[in-house]
Every structure is written in structure tokens, then in C-alpha cells.
């Protein structure tokens, strides 16, 4: 996409096709409500469209820009929701840290989905379930060294995917 990436209607369609899944995933993770998540994604593309001329691909990717808009939308929706007594009786505005935590969680979970099944499997068994390597190896019918090497390549794959997703440590 060239300068003014969202200045044409067709660009919005292309941007939607490319990024709506991720944006919706993050919105749902942080708002925990399908209706609000849908609203957030819609609002994000409309704001992007209205500000399309201001998008500068020299500064960052379209994806990064859309995520920055979505982050603001989520904050707005979170605030709007917090004034409803059902959700937050204290009336305290939601702070930004839980949102950043939600973004991080969503990124890591999404990266986990994208790495190979074999890699994800050994990370789940050894790390999340804390099972011994020998036991996992027996279950999978592979040598223990293979489990170890899959853990190594799994972490590397995860790093690559996170970098692709724009994660910076």
C-alpha cells in the first residue's frame, strides 16, 4: 500500500481482510465481550478511514497503526463500560496496565497458535503441565533428546513469530 494507505474504500477492505482477525482477537481478549469487541473493531477501521491521510508508512506498518487505534478504542469502551454500575461500582477508570497485560497475553497466545504443532505440544507438556521430559518422550514415542530439541526449536519459533507480530523486548 502506498502513502495515505486508507484513503480509498478499497484500501479499507484490504486492511480489513489482512488484519481484522488479529484486531478482533485482541479486542476480545481485553474486553472479554464479543459485542464490545465487534464494536471496537468497527470503530478502529472507521477511525483509521477518517484519519487515512495521516497514516505514514515511513513511520510504521499499517498493522501497528491499526493496533494503536484499537488500543485507544478499547480504553474508550472500557471507560464507557466502567460508568455502568453493573461492571464497576467504584467508578474508578480502568488503568492502562491491565490493557498492556491483555495485549501481551494475546500476543503470546496468538504466537503459540502459530508455531508448529510438535513444538507447541512439548512446550505445553513440559512447561505448562510441568511433566518430566522422559514421560513426554515416552508418550510421544520419541527419544528424550528429541523432546529437548523440540523445546529449543519451539522457543526459537516463538521468538520469530513474536518478532513478526511486532513484539519488542
Amino acid at each position, binding site marked *: 500500500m502506498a502513502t495515505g494507505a486508507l484513503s480509498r474504500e478499497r484500501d479499507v477492505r484490504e486492511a480489513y481482510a489482512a488484519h481484522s482477525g488479529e484486531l478482533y482477537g485482541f479486542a476480545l481478549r481485553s474486553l472479554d465481550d464479543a459485542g464490545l469487541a*465487534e464494536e471496537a473493531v468497527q470503530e478502529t477501521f472507521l477511525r483509521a478511514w477518517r484519519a487515512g491521510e495521516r497514516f505514514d508508512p515511513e513511520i510504521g506498518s499499517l498493522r501497528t497503526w491499526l493496533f494503536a487505534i484499537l488500543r485507544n478504542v478499547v480504553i474508550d*469502551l472500557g471507560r*464507557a463500560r466502567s460508568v455502568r454500575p453493573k461492571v464497576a461500582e467504584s467508578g474508578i477508570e480502568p488503568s492502562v496496565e491491565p490493557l498492556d497485560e491483555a495485549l*501481551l497475553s494475546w500476543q503470546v497466545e496468538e504466537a*503459540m497458535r502459530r508455531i508448529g504443532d510438535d513444538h507447541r505440544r512439548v512446550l505445553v507438556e513440559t512447561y505448562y503441565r510441568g511433566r518430566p521430559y522422559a514421560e513426554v518422550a515416552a508418550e510421544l514415542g520419541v527419544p528424550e533428546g528429541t523432546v529437548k530439541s523440540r523445546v*529449543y526449536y519451539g*522457543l*526459537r519459533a516463538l521468538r520469530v513469530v513474536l518478532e513478526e507480530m511486532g513484539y519488542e*523486548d
Partner: protein
Amino acid sequence: MKTERCRDWRESLGAYALGHLAAPERAALEAHLEGCPDCREEVKALSGVAVLLPHADPERFAAPAPQPPADLGERIAATVAAEGKRDLGRRKRRRFQLAFGGVAATAAVAALLTLVVLPGSGETTPEQQVQFASLPSGVAIDATLEPHSFGTEIHMYVSGIRSGTLCRVFLRGADGSRYPAGSFRYRWGEDSVAVLSSALDLSRTEAIGVHAGNRTFIAPVDQATVSVENETKEDAT
């Protein structure tokens, strides 16, 4: 530097970064790391990932990534297309608004807004015009609802409320449930026509509502002229 021994150790570095190596193996690996900047660099990279793992919930990533509703893209595209078409009219309207800017900028939201629904200008068009009347001087809210195959397109015009106020719009169906139509932030001096859309069919829309600040205003969507105060439900016939 890379040595033969690196190859032996390399694939243990993941388990090491996760703290999974038994003491003897860990000690032996650490002895290697001391003399091997390459492997140290690799451990650093893997540790950067390892510290992120606790943030992920394995139950969540075991499930497929959630997808937005299939028609959301169409609704957004339709809203964008409509907004593009209306650009000219919007600019005209803005000039009109600026002429009264002084009044608008000093007015606050009324405690109670009385909403009056007026019939659309052309009775034959399926478009619904909803006007919010009896507002304090300088405040104006009205909306136009258009039927589409994807649902309902809403053009909402707001002026004179506190700058920065978040306005969330929804439609209420005949069954009483709410369908979000999007939100916008009202700013002084900016274009204040918001184009929104909802999946709810106009023919099944009973009312339109706006949350502004912490208030909710609901207007029935029908042909009759009806007054409502705040969130009280009315039979619009």
C-alpha cells in the same frame, strides 16, 4: 566462538532457559557458557521468550483464534462507502454549524433531553429521521436511519455537548435486546456527523439509543410523533 561442543549443547539451551535441566547437566552447561559468547547470546534470546510464557493461558491458545462475525467487514465497508459519499454534504453542514459555534461551545448537556420523533421528509422513502427536540440552546442531536442488506446505517449529528464526550450508539430490537452501532467522540470544531452501522434490520428496530457521558437517551423509531424522557420505554404507536 563455535566449537564442536556447541553443537552438543545447543539443543539443551531451551530446557536450560526454562529452568528444566537437572543440576549436573546445568552445571556442565554453565561451564560451557562461561567460555562461549555465542551460546550465551542464544540463552539470552531464549530467556527473553521464556519469561513471556507465563502470560499465555494454554486453555486459550489450545482453542482456535476467535473470528469476528462474518458480516462485519461488509458493514464496515458499507459505512465507509456511505461516509465517502456524504463528504460534500458533511462539509456544508459543518459550515452551518460553525455559524452557531459560539452558542454550541458554551452549552452543556441538559439533565433531561426530551426526544421527539418527526416523520421523514419523504413518506415514500424507507429512511427514518429521528430528531431530538426540546434541547437546551445550542445542543442538537438527530439521526437518520437507512435500511441496508447488512442491517441499518445511522448518520448521527450532534453538536453543543461537552467536548470529548464519548457517544455510544445502539439500536434496540423488537425483542428488547441491544445491538451496538459503534461509538464516536464529540469534539468542538470538528465534523460532528458520525456514520455508524448496526447488524439489526431497520424494519426490526424499535428504538435508537445514545449513551453520552453516563446518560442514556432512547428514541423510538417509528412513524408517529412521540416524546420520551430519558430511558422510559414507550409504545411508539
